[in-house]
């Protein structure tokens, strides 16, 4: 779809109150940044401010949640502004239309898009600010601006120099230029150079302020007692005992449950503990949910084609029937909580027809609209003060603004400023999970072992279903976030007859995008299956992949570099084996080789992961390396440990003792090779999470000849 349609639809949906129309997920073909309407240049003052004391303040349109844009987007500005890097100060921008995502039309952070989507806008803002400073200096010196140059935060004219700070006020009075030229990349001084983070000093001293750390006089803390099963409702309750807990001030009913409002967290928690035994819940149909039964149901569904056709060419079923060899496999992945280290929280103050919100969010525009609706005011009367996010991974980007909406409801019902805080148990059991998914794949090989038919049936909840995005984003029964990585797989494109279909059942479990979204399961299924096919065909796994990708040089290069750096083909250390996987997502290609061993207790240990990453132009290689390491660690949690299961509607896990995640001793040594290419810039926050599951599973197979097709991977003990 074009940008214009998106913008028109955005306006229409704003008018109708139906919510915004934007894609959180960007299908590969739509990854172009739209031309700004009427070729307007950005308002440089919205993105960068130079102060008389020489500080350069960068306003961040996106949220810093660890991915490093605090530094990366500042580099874009600094490169063109030619300022002194040590004078940069960064702030989260307020929620305002000027900060709308260049590709999505709403203010948000997600989809590994911040750097590529802001590449032009932030550089342009920097270049415009520089031009205005130069023009102010030219006026001061009564000379032609073309005779001036800039150097590290100063304008230079022969032996004369003026610092940007000295010119700041005069520059502000200049008319922003109608057009600016951006530097040729050969002249870059900062972009492409490994650059340390700007937010380290405040984050290593405890000074960095997260949503959880917001404090102001009169702010109360609230914990919400939510139903024990999804979709449950309060039938009746007795707040007497809760209110007798010292520090508890109020118990108020809101749509999601009952909020205990207290002077501090501990009082609120004790109050909620006291309240819980006095709530009678109407559990509703959610009380029968059982994830094991759900998986069996998905298995049954996968035996027939899904109603949504995601990819189709030729007659895959006929070709399967006549293939020399048929390989059939099913892969499944469980529900997963994001479990960011900072539990969800949101502070809200409603006063004088205005609403102020302090929180770590990935979805400012949605939150603004949700809050406005609840408070009965206009979105422009809702101010959002974005705080550092103690991890996001998608959980802080809910189309329903769940944790923000709830906090506004509490503040409204209580009549006082309130910070709602989720405990870890609330987080693990609170839904908005990566959905449970099952893939059934049937592949026909010809006599030479080449795939000639590929039938692929995917079963799992649509993330977009039931959200304001559904009517625009789910096409012909296909939510692209369910099939991305399969329907557009370069492997499948090499198969002459193919059919990819999807079933999107709707059990009442809230689901959401989880770092790398659909790719979390599609990469596992695709790259495990490719490995199975290589063995079925009696071919070497790297060579088998290379044959399928023969005409796709970017993929081939990534595969071959990762394999070479990992010593693929050479004997691994005793007791270890290697596995290979390659996947494209968010515009970047990543190939990984995992080196694993298995202990006597059948515990899988991942020792080393060697990666080759092609994300097009690399802005900050040090940040890319960190994101790849981190994304692999995030993925490994799901490969080795994490799952959310439901029985009788109850989530069986509650905290990090049973919702296990990767800890430091399990962290492999990750080696990252960044491949520069001329391809359009891709994202880097998410792509490395996707293929690690298959890389490890394939290595486990190479070592044990056990093919593990369920996550988390568990070897049979016998």
């Amino acid at each position, binding site marked *: 779809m074009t940008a214009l349609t998106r913008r028109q639809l955005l306006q229409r949906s704003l008018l109708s109150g139906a919510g915004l129309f934007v894609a959180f997920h960007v299908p590969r073909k739509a990854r172009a940044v739209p031309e700004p309407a009427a070729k307007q240049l950005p308002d440089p003052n919205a993105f960068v401010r130079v102060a008389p004391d020489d500080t350069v303040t960068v306003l961040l349109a996106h949220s810093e949640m660890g991915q490093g844009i605090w530094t990366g987007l500042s580099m874009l500005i600094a490169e063109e502004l030619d300022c002194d890097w040590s004078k940069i100060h960064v702030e989260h921008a307020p929620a305002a239309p000027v900060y709308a995502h260049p590709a999505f039309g709403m203010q948000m952070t997600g989809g590994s898009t911040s750097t590529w989507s802001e590449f032009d806008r932030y550089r342009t803002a920097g270049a415009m600010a520089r031009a205005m400073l130069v023009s102010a200096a030219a006026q001061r010196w009564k000379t032609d601006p073309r005779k001036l140059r800039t150097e590290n935060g100063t304008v230079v004219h022969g032996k004369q120099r003026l610092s940007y700070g000295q010119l700041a006020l005069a520059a502000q009075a200049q008319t922003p230029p109608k057009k600016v030229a951006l530097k040729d990349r050969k002249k870059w001084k900062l972009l492409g150079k490994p650059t340390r983070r700007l937010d380290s000093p405040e984050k290593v001293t405890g000074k960095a302020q997260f949503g959880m750390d917001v404090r102001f006089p009169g702010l109360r803390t609230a914990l919400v007692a939510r139903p024990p099963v999804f979709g449950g409702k309060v039938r009746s309750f007795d707040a007497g005992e809760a209110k007798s807990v010292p520090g508890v001030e109020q118990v108020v009913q809101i749509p999601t449950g009952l909020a205990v409002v207290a002077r501090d967290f501990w009082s609120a928690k004790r109050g909620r503990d006291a309240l819980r035994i006095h709530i009678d819940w109407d559990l509703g149909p959610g009380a029968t949910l059982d994830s094991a039964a759900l998986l069996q149901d998905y298995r049954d569904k996968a035996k027939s084609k899904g109603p949504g056709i995601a990819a189709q060419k030729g007659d895959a079923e006929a070709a399967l029937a006549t293939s020399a060899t048929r390989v059939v496999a099913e892969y499944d992945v469980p529900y997963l909580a994001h479990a960011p*280290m900072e539990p969800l929280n949101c502070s809200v103050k409603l006063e004088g027809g205005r609403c102020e919100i302090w929180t770590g969010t990935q979805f400012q525009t949605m939150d603004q609209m949700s809050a406005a609706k609840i408070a009965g005011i206009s979105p422009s009367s809702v101010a959002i003060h974005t705080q550092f996010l*103690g991890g996001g991974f998608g959980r802080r980007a809910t189309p329903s603004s769940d944790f923000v909406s709830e906090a506004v409801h509490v503040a409204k019902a209580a009549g006082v400023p309130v910070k709602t805080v989720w405990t*870890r148990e609330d987080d693990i059991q609170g839904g908005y999970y990566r959905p449970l998914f099952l893939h059934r794949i049937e592949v026909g090989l010809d006599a030479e072992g080449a795939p000639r038919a590929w039938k692929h049936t995917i079963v799992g909840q649509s993330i977009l279903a039931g959200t304001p995005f559904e009517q625009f984003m789910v096409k012909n029964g296909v939510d692209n976030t369910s099939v991305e990585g399969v329907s557009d797989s370069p492997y499948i494109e090499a198969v002459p007859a193919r059919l990819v279909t999807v079933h999107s059942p709707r059990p009442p479990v809230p689901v959401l995008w989880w770092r790398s979204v659909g790719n979390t399961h599609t990469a596992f299924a695709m790259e495990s299956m490719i490995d199975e096919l290589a063995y079925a065909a009696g071919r070497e796994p790297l060579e088998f992949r290379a044959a399928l990708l023969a005409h796709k040089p970017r993929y081939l290069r990534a595969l071959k570099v990762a394999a070479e750096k990992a010593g693929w083909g050479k004997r691994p250390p005793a007791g270890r084996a290697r596995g290979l996987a390659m996947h494209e997502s968010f515009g970047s290609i990543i190939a990984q080789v995992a080196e694993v061993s298995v202990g006597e207790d059948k515990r899988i240990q991942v020792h080393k992961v060697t990666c080759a990453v092609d994300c097009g132009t690399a802005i900050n290689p040090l940040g890319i390396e960190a994101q790849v390491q981190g994304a692999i660690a995030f993925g490994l949690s799901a490969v080795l440990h994490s799952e959310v299961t439901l029985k009788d509607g109850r989530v069986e896990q509650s905290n990090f003792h049973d919702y296990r*995640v990767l800890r*430091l001793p399990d962290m492999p040594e990750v080696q990252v090779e960044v491949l520069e290419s001329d391809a359009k810039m891709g994202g880097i926050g998410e792509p490395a999470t996707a293929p690690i599951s298959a890389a490890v599973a394939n290595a486990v197979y190479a070592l044990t000849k056990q093919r593990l097709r369920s996550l988390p991977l568990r070897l049979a003990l016998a």
Partner: protein
Amino acid sequence: MQLNINGTAREVDAPDEMPLLWVIRDVLGLTGTKFGCGMAQCGACTVHLDGQAVRSCVLPVSAVAGRMVTTIEGLSPDGSHPVQRAWVDADVVQCGYCQPGQIMSAAALIAHNPSPSDEDIDAALAGNICRCGTYQRVREAVRKAAAQRRAER
């Protein structure tokens, strides 16, 4: 009751069973120490009690009366502790939320063990979860900090 926080005596009015974490955060307003799990599983709340790393989220405040508590704010006046410098140098942080806890665990380790082996580092930091996955650089920074501290002695 009277607490010694970062070298200063502080009189606090809090119930005996209130975890030290919430006294530090909600009563004293020192927000560098983080809440992550509430059951000593994640280490985000790590502080030093008489020089030892402890999880403040499960420690009743009554248990620390008269003892010396150090939080991330008291580790150094200006972020100059060798561990903090090594953290900046190795570019460890991502979202940053777990980092005060990681740093407090690392500082306690090298204070007691100036030459930690890789196994010592793994064992001392195993209780600190980082969902961003900064572990590889955490290891590197701890090694650097230990070397730095040895060099300064």
